[in-house]
């Protein structure tokens, strides 16, 4: 009789433990993002802007993107996103996609200059890290185009928890998940100024830095690249 109990117990034990489903709230706002923004353009010089539309889970989706110059006396932009500097001044460019209930836009401020080395000057982006967990994550960062890639530089306010195993830094357009994210690598510096060079990525390709603990499957924090 005890043998039967024992066998039954073992079978029950072996049958347990199926993989279940965890529902992740991964909805984000749809956005249009200018991937290669600039902040200055020389009069008479043309520059091709690229933009993409990211859907409500941060995945790029084909949409027709409309371009608009706030002052066509200073700079023109055609519907392919090609800029041409006309006259000196400050203005801005808008890329937009109409949605059913609103307009999704990205705006790039622009200075038109008479004399500019290389005819164009790339725009820097940056932001501030924030912890979305109980683990420490803080610091300011900048994102700058460099040699066909980007350099992400953290200043001396940066600090991250050393307690986690394999804290990994990602670039992503959806800060709720690592799905579709670009993995930069495991974090090895946990305080102070440092930088990463990421090849073949443009300044505006990704919207967020994402810090994620892979062994825990836990999001630690993020930083909007603004």
């Amino acid at each position, binding site marked *: 009789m*005890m043998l039967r*109990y*024992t066998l039954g*117990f*073992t079978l*029950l*034990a*072996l049958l*347990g*433990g199926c*993989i*279940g*489903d*965890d*529902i*992740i*709230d*991964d*909805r984000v706002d749809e956005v249009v993002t200018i991937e290669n923004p600039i902040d200055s353009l020389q009069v008479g010089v043309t520059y091709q802007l690229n933009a993409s539309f990211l859907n*409500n*889970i941060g995945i790029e989706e084909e949409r027709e993107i409309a371009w608009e110059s706030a002052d066509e006396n200073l700079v023109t932009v055609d519907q392919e996103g090609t800029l041409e500097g006309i006259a000196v001044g400050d203005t801005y460019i808008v890329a937009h996609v109409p949605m059913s209930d609103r307009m999704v836009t990205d705006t790039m401020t622009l200075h038109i200059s008479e004399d500019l080395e290389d005819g164009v000057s790339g725009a820097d982006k940056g932001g501030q890290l924030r912890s979305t*967990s*109980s*683990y420490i994550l803080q610091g300011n960062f900048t994102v700058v185009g460099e040699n066909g890639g980007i350099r992400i530089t953290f200043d001396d306010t940066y600090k991250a*928890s*050393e*307690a*986690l*195993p*394999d*804290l990994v830094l990602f670039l992503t357009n959806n800060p709720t*998940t*690592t*799905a579709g994210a670009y993995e930069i*690598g*495991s*974090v*090895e510096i946990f305080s102070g100024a440092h930088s990463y060079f990421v090849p073949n990525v443009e300044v505006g390709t990704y919207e967020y830095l994402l810090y994620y603990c*892979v*062994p*825990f*499957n*836990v999001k630690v924090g993020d930083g909007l690249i603004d």
Partner: protein
Amino acid sequence: MKYSITFLLSLMTLTSVWAGGPWPQPKGKGYFKLFEYWVVADQHFTDAGMIDPNITTAFYSTGVYGEYGLTDRLTAVAYVPFFVRNLYNNAISGTTGEVIIPGEAVNAFGDVDLSLTYGLVRDKPIVMSASVLFGLPTGVTGRGGLGILQTGDGEFNQMIKVDAGGSFQLAGINFYASAYAGFNNRTQGFSDEFRYGFETGGTFLNNKLTAIARFTGIESFQNGSVLSASDGVSLFANNAEYLAFSPEIAYHINEQWGVSASSSTVFFGRLIMASPAYSVGVFFTL
């Protein structure tokens, strides 16, 4: 090797539940148990002792535990988890319903613990024993696509432990109380640990039912080394600490056979799961 959060809780409970206390088995006598232990958790204690969510992970361990009296003072103890399953759930998009990150599981042999317990003081109101335990890295680590599934910790640890306790009667009911303290020397860069525990139990229904209240804890010596992530290795278990409460009920069906059930809840912890663990078993006394 990567060390998932799941494994810590397994260590925590498994190493406490089997404590034989300060009473060695008489020569030729023994206690053997077939058990199933499991924990399913979607949250954990952070390094600051706060509770944060995580993807649901689970750890199931099926194995045998045995004590056998080699002499009246010396008892051999073995803990053999012969089937261990570690998994994490699918992450499903709440927006699209699609699988974002597929869940995975690993099934394998777990880490075996072998120990010897020697009765230092016997037949006194307060008895004492000393134990030496060897934790063998017979489980697997670094499994699954993310390399985070494991059924062992990948390190060989050695623990020395001293137990003391006594039995007494209250209102005609048999009770006992015992406590232990131990030093666990861990390798592979894990921090060494101070382990301690206290338990008390009473027998009821003509000694057929035993109820136990058990408290166990770990304090880290904070002397582990964290390996560079660039080496493809990361450590988790370093510096984990907790204080847990584990009530247990054992029912003797007859003189030799019985069944038991227990749970384990962490009062305070750092870097361990924050969900209860459970264990059921069938035991046999020789």
